[in-house]
């Protein structure tokens, strides 16, 4: 059995930020990342970020990943890439799969920063080749330089759907339409305006009824929805396309916490099953902390701040008090408060109250 001080599961914005503050507090940290590079979803984000300077606003996501990695690379951190945590147990033991080998690690503290996975949409023929999740499109396009198709229909108008549509246009792909079942655009208006002025029709109260095509997607049938989300017959229409991109929300990657039998609860506003947590970001399992999208779907800016707090707390409870602990704790909580206090933060504020997080 390998023994470690702090294991951070996931090298995305939350995990990297957690590692940073824990390292500064003097802990030895291992980051276990499933992918071949650190950065998580930031590696696919070619757009400039919102927020304030402390969350790297106006810096492109891909460059934020570089900054977060540079902040930890000369410290006492061990980075395991292409390594998947496949088991988490109650006694702080985790099993890791890397290079065709399993290993067991016992950690004094664990920070779960596994992020989220994409939701999918049920419709006829949704398994036709050419129908992708938005994350897959971003991975293909922004990491591997491969276009998903030439003419795309985007389903879902949250920030991811809006941003990926814009990235598709930047890559030279025609976005035939953006379809949204709700009566309003889900993401930021500025992102929607950016698409509309480039000629992308934004169809609210509309859903995809089915995809069609011979061996691959050749088009979708859309239909209008009434205020009770019922299809309005006679409003069917068809859009020809060679790709469909599904962006209908994210769910927290709760599986490891569920496996270790952390107390979980289903909170719609947070995207699904999430761990109960104390205001120190500790789950019901002693010395197991959680931060970022695994505790509720939000923007990467909040994930970074949450990560920093989780790192501070995990270190403190293990006897490593950050030299600027009090100042940092106050500043970070203030930052989170500001990020969440506007109308766009209403859903997350409401959700967090349900998991026991102190939120005024």
């Amino acid at each position, binding site marked *: 059995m390998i023994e470690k001080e702090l294991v951070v599961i996931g090298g995305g914005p939350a995990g990297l930020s957690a590692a940073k503050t824990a390292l500064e507090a003097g802990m030895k940290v291992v980051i276990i990342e499933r992918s071949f590079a650190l950065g998580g979803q930031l590696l696919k984000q070619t757009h400039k970020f919102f927020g304030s300077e402390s969350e790297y606003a106006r810096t492109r996501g891909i460059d934020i990943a570089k900054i977060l990695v540079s902040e930890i690379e000369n410290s006492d951190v061990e980075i395991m890439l292409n390594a998947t945590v496949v088991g988490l147990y109650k006694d702080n033991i985790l099993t890791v799969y890397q290079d065709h080998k399993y290993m067991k690690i016992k950690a004094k503290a664990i920070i779960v920063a596994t992020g989220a996975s994409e939701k999918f949409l049920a419709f006829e023929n949704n398994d036709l080749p050419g129908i992708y999740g938005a994350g897959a499109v971003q991975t293909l396009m922004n990491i591997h330089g491969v276009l998903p198709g030439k003419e795309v229909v985007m389903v879902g108008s949250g920030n991811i759907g809006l941003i990926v549509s814009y990235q598709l246009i930047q890559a030279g792909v025609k976005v035939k339409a953006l379809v949204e079942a709700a009566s309003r*655009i889900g993401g930021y208006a500025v992102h929607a305006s950016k698409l509309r002025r480039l000629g992308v029709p934004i169809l609210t109260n509309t859903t995809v009824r089915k995809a069609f095509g011979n061996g691959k997607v050749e088009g979708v049938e859309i239909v209008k929805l009434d205020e009770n989300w019922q299809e309005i017959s006679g409003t069917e229409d068809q859009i020809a396309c060679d790709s469909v991109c599904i962006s209908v929300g994210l769910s927290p990657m709760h599986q490891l916490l569920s496996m270790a039998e952390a107390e979980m609860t289903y909170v719609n506003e947070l995207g699904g099953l999430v761990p109960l947590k104390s205001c120190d970001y500790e789950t019901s399992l002693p010395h197991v902390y959680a931060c970022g999208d695994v505790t509720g779907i939000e923007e990467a800016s909040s994930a970074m701040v949450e990560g920093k707090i989780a790192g501070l707390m995990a270190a403190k409870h293990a006897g490593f008090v950050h030299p600027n602990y009090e100042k940092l704790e106050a500043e970070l909580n203030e930052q989170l408060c500001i990020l969440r*206090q506007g109308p766009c933060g209403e859903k997350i504020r409401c959700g967090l109250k349900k998991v026991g997080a102190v939120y005024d």
Partner: protein
Amino acid sequence: MIDKNGVATIEMIKSKFPKKEVLTRPKAIIECYQEIPCNPCSTACPFDAIHIGNDINQIPVLDVDKCTGCSSCITACPGLAIMVVSIKDGKAYFKIPYELLPLPVRGEKWTALNRYGEKLNKLCTIENVNISKKSDRTAVVTVSIEQPFLYEFATIGERA
């Protein structure tokens, strides 16, 4: 409506423009209509002309007198929602953020698009294209078009 199709109403657009007499000097037009947690326009302004305050969810307010039209905010805005506008000799000059390829070249005629992405019935002239380290891969394109399109022009489409 902007929450249904991404297009602001003409009243909303006009509320972001100063009086035409003021536009003899270039001024920032900040088309930010929604309270979102974001403040780079304010921190990027070297003249303290864009105010948001401690609650970064507030909508930015422009101090027209302090704004010099320097364009720092154009490429700082992550929403690409700011342009700098001026009027001279019957023409409106727009500095817009642009992140598509190919980049236009000075002197070219391009189609002009409104906020729906529809072509306006006049072409615009590319006056300048600027891309600097500070702008971080967002180009600032200066275009001119007949003044009556002041409230309609939104971006450029394709080379004519």
